[in-house]
């Protein structure tokens, strides 16, 4: 997986409510719900700021096909970017 750096928006807040993980972006005043897998990915993304590092962490922690993980992670990151929750670094 390529090494893509990103920055999480400073206007995003995450909290666990009941069995759900909620993201709130104060710049758009929108809420997003994450399922269990999404919450794990987000937590890892907060730690690493680089998709390749997230990929490697998830691969070592879970029994998952590498190609499937790469595809899902890319799709997840693109979805976050489309909503302005993360911004990919251009360089």
């Amino acid at each position, binding site marked *: 997986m390529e090494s893509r750096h990103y920055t999480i928006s400073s206007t995003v807040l995450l909290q666990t409510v009941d069995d759900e993980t909620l993201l709130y972006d*104060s710049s758009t005043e929108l*809420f997003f719900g994450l399922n269990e897998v999404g919450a794990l990915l987000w937590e890892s993304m907060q730690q690493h700021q680089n998709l390749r590092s997230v990929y490697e962490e998830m691969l070592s922690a879970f029994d998952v096909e590498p190609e499937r993980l790469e595809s899902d992670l890319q799709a997840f990151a693109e979805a976050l970017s489309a909503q302005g929750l993360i911004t990919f670094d251009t360089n």
Partner: protein
Amino acid sequence: MYDLLIECCSHTPDPFKLETFAATITDWNAFHESAYAHGVYPLVYDVLKGITNVPENVKTFFKKHNREIAALNMRMTAELLAVTRQLGAHGIDVFAFKGPVLSQMLYGGVVQRQYADLDILIDEHVLSECVELLSAHGYEYEHPSGFLKNRFLLRNVKDIVITNQKKSVHLEIHWKLFMGRLFQKVDHKRLLDGPRRVLIQEEPIMTLNTNVLMLYLLSHGSKHLWERLEWIADIDRLCRMEPDIEWNRIEMMADEMEIRPFLFLGMEVCRQVFDTPFPTDIMQKIRNDQRIVSAASILCDRIRADRIHDIDEYMENYFYLGINASIPWVSRVLSRFYRPSIHDIYTINLPDRLWPLYYVILTWRVVKTQIALRLGWMDGKTGRKGTQ
């Protein structure tokens, strides 16, 4: 109903008691309203969902409302972070307390408490600047910001509220935590020594040190006659979580500000409701003051009987004046009835060197109102002028 409410909020709820109390509830709507009114909805829901004797439709109902509270809390927390960043960028030190900060401290997240506004503490000298900066952020204050430089105001009032109508956020800006007696000077700067930092979203937010926070929570609750169970639960949890609270220091601070009765009243209420483990030497002093013990018992009985909001102004004055026996009567009455309000200061608006005239004018107003009431020129309840 209140047995279940209190058990849900206790530090270690007893499963048998929870099931027993839940089985007695016939009106879950009333329980829902009480939990909300007492500010303990998230706490209650967290326990309720594990009780077998709570119907599933009730759990679903509570889940929906809890999520709404959580969403509101997240919006307010984001706003608090934005406000502290904005003021911090202009070199203004901000102490945030209660609200999301207290929730994070006590429960590890910002959604586990209910709060309707945000509280920050700043230096009084930057109050006007703060309000101007925040006005660019959508906040409005009812009076011109120049008014906030009025020295009489800064001495006699301790906080104002500004509002962001678009975001529906009320921000309470404090420059004092405690009001002493009328004309008493309180050293507030010392209260800010040794601040604590709480991480919200990995962002360090400066807040009060634990001793000052505990004193504030106890005196604030006593001032409002413990009308919210949330306040009692907060103190119980803080006491159990923080083994290094310096109770002697808290007592000393309370004595300096002559609010020891409020401190003791709060501690006795917490003990009676949650059996909070306060130091035995202080509890002995409280037990020796029958006035405090009786006042706490009255308040706790009212909580349990759902009559806490029945306390009228007469009773409030009785509590306030009655438990402060160590302060001279005249001083108690003056502090209770003669402290000018923001409205008084704004409408009278004297130069600072003429400040004693505020009390002359206030005295005249009181006399005028009493004359008008007795001659039937004014309605005692509405304050409106009659037909004569």
